[in-house]
Each structure stands twice: as structure tokens, then as C-alpha cells.
């Protein structure tokens, strides 16, 4: 188990990581989700011990490891860039942590071959990394992290430099491969979709703050702040200012939605996920609205319809192909039961 207790990192007066407490269970998969410069890499480096926190402590299996050199801890790290030893064969690359640990030759051979098998590198063991494709190079780096048998495996956007389809495949394999090792896996990414596909737990980051941490799907469905909801939405979350009076929200776009009785009258911010808008009424709570289309994007199976609403840009994600021309007036429905309600300062309120 890895625990961060009030860990903070301040460099030259700038807060890279605000005081953060997290505890990651052995054998768990944890995603750090946030845009670039939100602090994902800083947090990974603090976990690894590559950086010393300005305040707070890092605990590993009940031992304080704050400030302990990264070399004295059993950690593996994989980066966005494919980092391998260019002059060594794939076999030697994978074997390198075992050689450093003075593992017997027979065991090295066995471990390297089984890791290579898992990551489908067996045919390339005698080649050098630079003669391989990007995907194979990154598999080599992953295999090296795997054989090390590290208690903590840190992956910093490991698939960002790979092709879309390759990413899809490796993303599916990765959790399975590391699941058996019992290591704590920490995976940093900028992409909400990637977090959802990986599952496990997710910590959302925003400007050096961990805004929420919990099972990935829970964080996605029940974000505790507007910031989290926005960070964890792809396509982007639709938001609008609303004013509650009596039993309804009055929206900036001149629409009203049923409001929960428990809320006090006053200003709120509403969040609507793009797939909770649709062209036909989803259920009884659906509210119609008219949108003037800005642009439509079609993927073949789904359509993204962009339209301005209440002074911001909204997008609807709807199944099927719907080609609207810019300027078309389209009737859509908001699934009022799934609207997220936030206070004006961005705190989620049970809707």
C-alpha cells in the first residue's frame, strides 16, 4: 500500500502540488486524470521519490519512505517517450533490472521469456529497439517494468505516442498483465475516455489539486465538483447558469427544468453530459429545447451536434447519422433526471 499524507510540492513559490492525501491499495489500478500541467507528472515523481515533497510524508507498506532515494525503493516507471537502451537487444533490455539485482541466469531467462510472451515480443527478442515499431518499443519498456516485479509501477501517459488503434489494444492488455503481479499501478493520462476504459480508481487533477478520488465510474457519474465533472468529460461538459425559484430552474437560454424541492432558491450552475441530450424524448422527465446548429460532426455511428446555448458552446452526442446544416433549427431534449446541479462556487449538490 502506498500512502501520501498531506504531501505538497512548492517550487519557487509556485504550488506544483497542493497538500494531497491519497492511499493506493496493493494490486490496484489508479488513474491520474487531468490536462497537461495539472500536476500528474509532479505527483508521479513524488510517489517515486524522484522529488522530495516540500511538506508531508510518503508511506509504503507502513514505512516512511519520504526522501528515501528512488534507487533504494522498488519502483518501475514507463514514460511517454519510448525509453530503452538502444545498443542492447530487446532481451537484454528486458533483463536489465534483473541483471542489476544479480538474479541467477536461468531465472532471468525464464522471467524475460514469460514477460516477452505476455507482451507479444517473443519474435523480436534478438533485435535492438530502434529497429522496432513504436508499439513494440513501448512494449519493451513495459516488459522491463513488468519483470522488475516492482511494488509500484508508474506509467506517465505511456500510450500517448502510439496510434489510436494500437492504444486501444495495449490499453486493454495493460491492466490484465499487471493485475497478476500484485503491484500498485498508477497511470497518468489526459484523456477521460482512456480513464473509463482502464477502470480501477481515478484521481482527477486540476492545477495541482486532486479534486476527487474514487472508483473510476463513480467519479465519472457523481463528480463532487464542477471542475471534476469538466475534467472528466469527453466531449466537453455542457454547462449553463440557472436560477431556482419554486419548483423549477430558469436557464439562461430561456428554458425551465424541474428542480429538486430540497434546494434553496437562488443561483446554480447546471451540467449536462453531451449524451444526455437527444433528438427524441428519453423519458417523462425530458425537456424540449430548440437549438440553432453551429456545426455537425459525424463518426459514422454517432453524431456530434454543436450549438450555442445560453452564451456558451454546447454539444450533443447522439447515436446514428444526423447531418444538420449550420443554422438549422433542431428540437432536442434534455434528460432532466440526469442533469448535474452545482452551487455557483462549483460544489456538486445531489440532484
Amino acid at each position, binding site marked *: 500500500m502506498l500512502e501520501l499524507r498531506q504531501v505538497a510540492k512548492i517550487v519557487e513559490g509556485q504550488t506544483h502540488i497542493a497538500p494531497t492525501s491519497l492511499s493506493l491499495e496493493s494490486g490496484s489500478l489508479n488513474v491520474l486524470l487531468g*490536462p*497537461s500541467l495539472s500536476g500528474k507528472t509532479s505527483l508521479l515523481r513524488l510517489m517515486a521519490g524522484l522529488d522530495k515533497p516540500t511538506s508531508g510524508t510518503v508511506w509504503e507498506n507502513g514505512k516512511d519512505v519520504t526522501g528515501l532515494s528512488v534507487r533504494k525503493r522498488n519502483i518501475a516507471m514507463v514514460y511517454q517517450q519510448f525509453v530503452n537502451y538502444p545498443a542492447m537487444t530487446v532481451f537484454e533490455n528486458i533483463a536489465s533490472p534483473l541483471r542489476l539485482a544479480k538474479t541467477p541466469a536461468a531465472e532471468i531467462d525464464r522471467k524475460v521469456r514469460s514477460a516477452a510472451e505476455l507482451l507479444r515480443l517473443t519474435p523480436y527478442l534478438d533485435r535492438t529497439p530502434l529497429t522496432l*515499431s*513504436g508499439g513494440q518499443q513501448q512494449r519493451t519498456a513495459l516488459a522491463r517494468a513488468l519483470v522488475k516485479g516492482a511494488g509500484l509501477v508508474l506509467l506517465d501517459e505511456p500510450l500517448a505516442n502510439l*496510434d*489510436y*488503434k*494500437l492504444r*486501444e489494444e495495449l490499453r486493454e492488455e495493460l491492466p490484465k498483465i499487471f493485475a497478476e503481479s500484485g503491484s500498485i499501478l498508477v497511470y497518468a493520462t*489526459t*484523456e*477521460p*475516455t482512456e480513464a*473509463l*476504459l482502464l*477502470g480501477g480508481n481515478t484521481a482527477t487533477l486540476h492545477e495541482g489539486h486532486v479534486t476527487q478520488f474514487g472508483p473510476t*465510474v463513480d467519479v*465519472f*457519474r457523481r463528480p463532487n465538483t464542477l471542475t471534476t465533472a*469538466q475534467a472528466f468529460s*469527453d*466531449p*466537453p461538459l455542457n454547462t449553463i447558469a440557472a436560477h431556482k425559484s419554486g419548483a423549477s430552474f430558469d436557464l439562461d437560454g430561456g428554458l425551465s427544468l424541474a428542480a429538486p424541492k430540497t434546494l434553496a432558491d437562488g443561483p446554480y450552475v447546471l451540467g449536462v*453530459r453531451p*449524451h444526455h441530450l437527444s433528438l427524441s424524448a428519453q423519458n417523462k422527465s425530458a425537456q424540449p429545447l430548440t437549438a440553432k446548429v*453551429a*456545426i455537425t*460532426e*459525424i*463518426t*459514422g*455511428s454517432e453524431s*456530434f451536434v*454543436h450549438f450555442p446555448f445560453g452564451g456558451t*458552446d454546447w*454539444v450533443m*452526442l447522439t*447515436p446514428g*447519422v444526423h447531418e444538420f446544416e*449550420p443554422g438549422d433549427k433542431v428540437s432536442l431534449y434534455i434528460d432532466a433526471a440526469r442533469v448535474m446541479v452545482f452551487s455557483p462556487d462549483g460544489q456538486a449538490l445531489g440532484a
Partner: protein
Amino acid sequence: MAAIKLDHIRHAYGPNPVSRDDYALKGVDHTFEDGSAYALLGPSGCGKTSLLNIISGLVRPSEGQLYFDAHDVTDLSTRERNIAQVFQFPVVYDTMTVAENLAFPLRNRRIAPAEIKTRVAEVLEMIGLTAMANKKARGLNADQKQKISLGRGLVRADVGAILFDEPLTVIDPHMKWVLRSQLKQLHRQFGHTMIYVTHDQTEALTFADKVMVMFDGEIVQIGDATQLFNEPAHTFVGYFIGSPGMNVLPVKVDGRRALIGQQAIALPSGVTIPAGKSIELGIRPEHLTLGRAGLPITVDRVEDVGRRRIVRARLEGLELAIAAPEDADIPADPHVAIDAGRIGVFADSWRLESRS
């Protein structure tokens, strides 16, 4: 602006290519229509960037001719072709301001200062950087820099085409949405011929009027998003487009039925099955319905991806991905129903057209 015609273009990076495998581009013959938006979509190494560089003149093709309208430009330099290109990593001139960056292509072409001024002001407006016109470019973030790269292409009134080489790679997901739809709006407003290279299907399908799927140095299929999704010409297109990709099931043919183990699926009418070829059925996860009717399956696991669920199942031992709604239940005795009209039949990986 111009139509761009590729006339039997082949390209090899090594000298004296002999076999087909020596070519990075194995023969491309296509005309890009004036004012349309195209995407070249494919995995790395498929030749899409080579093709783009041939169009822009950064690479001279080993064989074949390139025409802009009626002019043979095969031997013209990039500069003479009047092409704009936006690269994967934003290229800005660090020592210049944002406005000077935009003026640079015009100044190089000795346009009158008064005209430069109006063009630059227009483009600043288009890309939304008017407020930063006099800031040094080096201090900007990745998406602003990429807007400048794009702006340098838009600023030339006479530009023949704007080429994009994976321009959104270094942009954060949220900004990708913004830039992508802005790009599409710019295309609609100004009607430049645009060619966009990417490995990301969403970018390709949403941006382009016509997507060209490339594989191993060849164009496998050209079509709009709907065609590529519903009628992939090759199992590769079926796999590459869609997430997850199309389910491809090898079958035995028995009259008008396709056999998968103990199960039989009726073949679509109007498809003639050729003898002696390996036959596969292609079915999209979106065209499968999980429920109590249809063929019996076993469920391996269910992936909750937020707005929907992906059910990983097996039909007679073959892997099958099924798309299910956000709040779908998984029945205890799961079956899958196939949308019969959406089944594609493939012989040796190529789609069999149905005569109707």
C-alpha cells in the same frame, strides 16, 4: 485553390526499388476535388505522411505525376506550389510576435504592406488571437502555437491547399474539440481544399467530407463516415474504424447459411459467395443487441465506459464485442440478436457487394 490530381504515384525511399515491398507508396491514383476536406487515415507506416509530403513537395515521388488543376507540378518546389502545411508539433518563429509570424509568408512573397496588414488582422480574428497580436510567440502554449501555424496557412489568399500532418497530437482533449470544430467551420466559410493526415478515426471522420483509409502503402477505401462505418470495403477498414472495431467472424458456408460452430446465421440475400475463398462475416458491436433473444453467448466481462457499456462475449468460442446502453442489464442467460440488414460478408478480407 486547386484540384489536386495524383497520377499513378509510387514512392520508394531506398534506391532502385524492385519488388512491391520496396515501395512505401504502392500506387496512388486519385483526384482531390477543389474545395473539399479530405482525411488520410491509417496506422503509422501506412504511407499517409509520405503522400502528404509528396503533395506539398517536400518529397519528390519516385514515379508518377502530380497535377494542380491542369499544371504538372511534379518538379516544382514547395514554394512554387503555394501550399500550406501544419505539422504535428507547432512550428512558430520564436523571435517574432504573433502578428509577425502571420505576416511572414506574405512578406516573403513581397505582398504590399497595406494588404499584409489587413490579411493579418483578418486571420487574427479567424483564429481568435487578436488580443495577443503583439506578444512574442515563444511564450504561448501548445494550442495557441498550433493556431499560429494554421494561421500562416490561412493568411495567403491564393493558397492551393492546406495540408495537416496530425495537427492535434500535442493538444489536450478539451482543446481538441474546440480546434477541430473551428477548423471545420473555417473550411465551410472559406472553402480551402484541405487534406488532413491522422491515425485518429474520430478526427478523420468528423473533419473530412471524404476519408481515405490507407494500409500498407495503398488506399483501401474512400468514403464518407457513414459509408466507412456501414460498408467497410475490407476487414481492415472494419477493424480500424469504430471503437471497438467490427467483429470479424470466420464462417463455413452451407447454402444460404453461415455456420459458426453449432450456430447458423442466414446470409444476406443478393450476395453471391465465391468458391474457394475464406469467408468472414463482419458485424459492428453497435448492430448487436444483448438480450434474451438470438444466439446464446457467454459473457467474459462488461466494460463500463461511462456513456455506454461494452460487453466482451463469446459466441461458439469466438470473441464478440457488443455495445449496450449506459443502464443496460446483463441477463442471466445472455443471447445476442444480430441486425440482419447490417451483416457484411467478406471473401479473402474484401467485402462482397450485394446486388439488390
